[in-house]
């Protein structure tokens, strides 16, 4: 009886040791993830909602292991999952302190109200606004990442975010989706 128990305990201890060694080795074998690889997954909205002032700095903080992976609302849950996959961490819901996941939108300047102050041009991180001093400004829709940084910058509140048609996915198939098949 005692001998049997001892054997079991010893066998257990041996396996525990082996597992521990294996875990150490395998963890060491994992190459560190570069900031470039992380940056490639971020949506490049450059909105700073993550608290790092832009996608690249957030990628660097993630690479250093200093940041949580759920701080990018524009990337959405799909983005979190991709990051989790790359970093070998568990995905978690977007941190509400950073913002909410929203349907894609682009900025729209009310061109009748715009006074041409150039403040939005200075705010736009991706040069998506064209215009000159004291002339009407406009957003180039294809270039706008929807970061919303220009909205508070406008002194006359003439910039609004408009949802982009076609960039929102169609409804999920369900009872309404009817597949037509000829009975054979």
């Amino acid at each position, binding site marked *: 009886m005692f001998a049997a128990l001892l054997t079991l305990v010893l066998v257990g201890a041996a396996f525990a040791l082996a597992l521990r060694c294996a875990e150490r080795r395998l963890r060491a074998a994992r190459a560190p993830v570069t900031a470039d690889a992380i940056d490639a997954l971020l*949506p490049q909205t450059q909105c700073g909602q993550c608290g790092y002032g832009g996608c*690249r700095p957030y990628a660097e903080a993630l690479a250093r292991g200093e940041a949580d992976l759920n701080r990018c609302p524009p990337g959405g849950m799909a983005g979190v999952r991709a990051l989790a996959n790359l970093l070998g961490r568990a995905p978690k819901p977007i941190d509400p302190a950073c913002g909410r996941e929203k349907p894609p939108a682009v900025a729209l300047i009310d061109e009748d109200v715009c006074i041409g102050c150039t403040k939005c041009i200075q705010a736009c*991180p991706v040069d998506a606004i064209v215009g000159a001093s004291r002339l009407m400004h406009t957003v180039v829709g294809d270039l706008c990442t929807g970061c919303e940084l220009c909205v508070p910058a406008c002194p006359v509140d003439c910039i609004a975010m408009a949802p982009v048609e076609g*960039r929102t996915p169609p409804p999920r*198939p369900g009872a309404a989706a009817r597949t037509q098949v000829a*009975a054979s």
Partner: protein
Amino acid sequence: MRIHRFHGGMRLDLRKQAALARPIRPCPLPPQLAIPLAARADMAARAVVAPGRRVRRGEVIGRIEGAHGTTVHASTSGTVLAVEARPLADADARAGPCVVIEPDGADDEQRLPPIEDWRDAPRAALLERLRETGIVGLGGGAFPSAAKLAGAQPTLIVNGAECEPYVACDEALLRERAEEVVAGAALLAHVLGAARTFIAVEEAMPQALAALESALHAAPFEGAALAAVPTRYPEGGERQLIQALTGREVPSGGLPQDLGIVCHNVATAAAAWRAVARGEALTARIVTVTGAGVVEPGNFEVRLGTPLAWLVEQAGGYTARAARLLAGGPMTGVALPHDDVPASAATHCVLVLAEHDLRDAAPELPCIRCAECARVCPARLQPLQLLADLRADDTAEARAHALADCIECGLCAYACPSHIPLVDWFRRGKAELRAQAAARANADAARERYRAREARLAREREERLQRSAARRAELAAAQAPTPPISKDAVLAAIARGRARKRVPPPGGESGGDA
């Protein structure tokens, strides 16, 4: 010749007799044509005519941009009324750019000079001809043919196997115009430099096969062979046909070109031959109008841009039983909300089903993991797994499970005992994958602009610093030679100032001197 088997597939009830009972009929010109500029949603097209312009049949009215670019032609003579977005024969009748033409009835045609001796013509000239006559794949893909023929390949397959129930336009073409198809096959083989050419039809098309045999006998060409493949849906799918004929499988994510094979539809071959030997642009195609919902089913030669409503009228109109309008066949077609959409080069079939043909009445049930869907899937996918991925909104997982390889044949949904609309999920998922790829490209471009801007701001900061440093240095330099001012000099200057104040300036009205 040995015919191989592909995975999955099903024998379906063909129901083609109704449409094949009559010969191909020309569809009369409608009062108005709306010619779609791009038959595929992923192509950017632009009109090159303005409203008010008179055009002749065959004249270029639009261009599809890009490396795979081609042209779009007026399908009859008349006046351009508008260039505007119109609903297309596409999922949800999505709107796309169209050139609206009011026919003048003369149908006056402009043709390019025929290339009679195409056997001696250089490849580049023939490719250019296919590009400038707007020849695109007529099997439903509408991909520009010249782009598919650009590289030399050893094997050409001319695909006459339809296999989808109801669709009979290729069979009608083969029965009546087999010689054009054979001439087209010879032409495409010449352009490709192909040593082997298979012209494939289904076993269930004996008349078409006989017509092809006599046409090939009359005009034989090097390396040509006829093949009759079993009628097993989706035998007419490019990848399935390649496997049936060669026993080789197109790799996941790959193209037939990776195996040295190019596949063209029989109607495309005939259109290519007409473009080269007669100088005709692509202005019409054969469309099957059929189903229990139309009075007189049949095959029609239809000018591109003809409204489906007009086309159905030529087939005797709708029957009382008509319940659903589809562009395409019952398996791969899309349901249209209305018939005010034009036929495009991709419209091979207009199907009107009656209520008893539809299967929707059955409610959707949970997946019981019977794997019936995987058994029938010709792409060897695991539709049940893909469904789970997509239901969890996990497109990354779905991509890893090769969602992009789904050919949207619809068999999984057909076979599913739980009536799950699997193929609808996969169409949506594939669109989502494409949207993600586009978003990725946008993000990469945004990153570049962000970097460029950061670099510019840094440069400007640097320049500002340099400028102010330079100004400081200048000031310092200007001040340096002035010797330190002595107290006497200051006192002398003050005294000078006082003296000047006492004497008022000449003509000055300064009253400050109290």
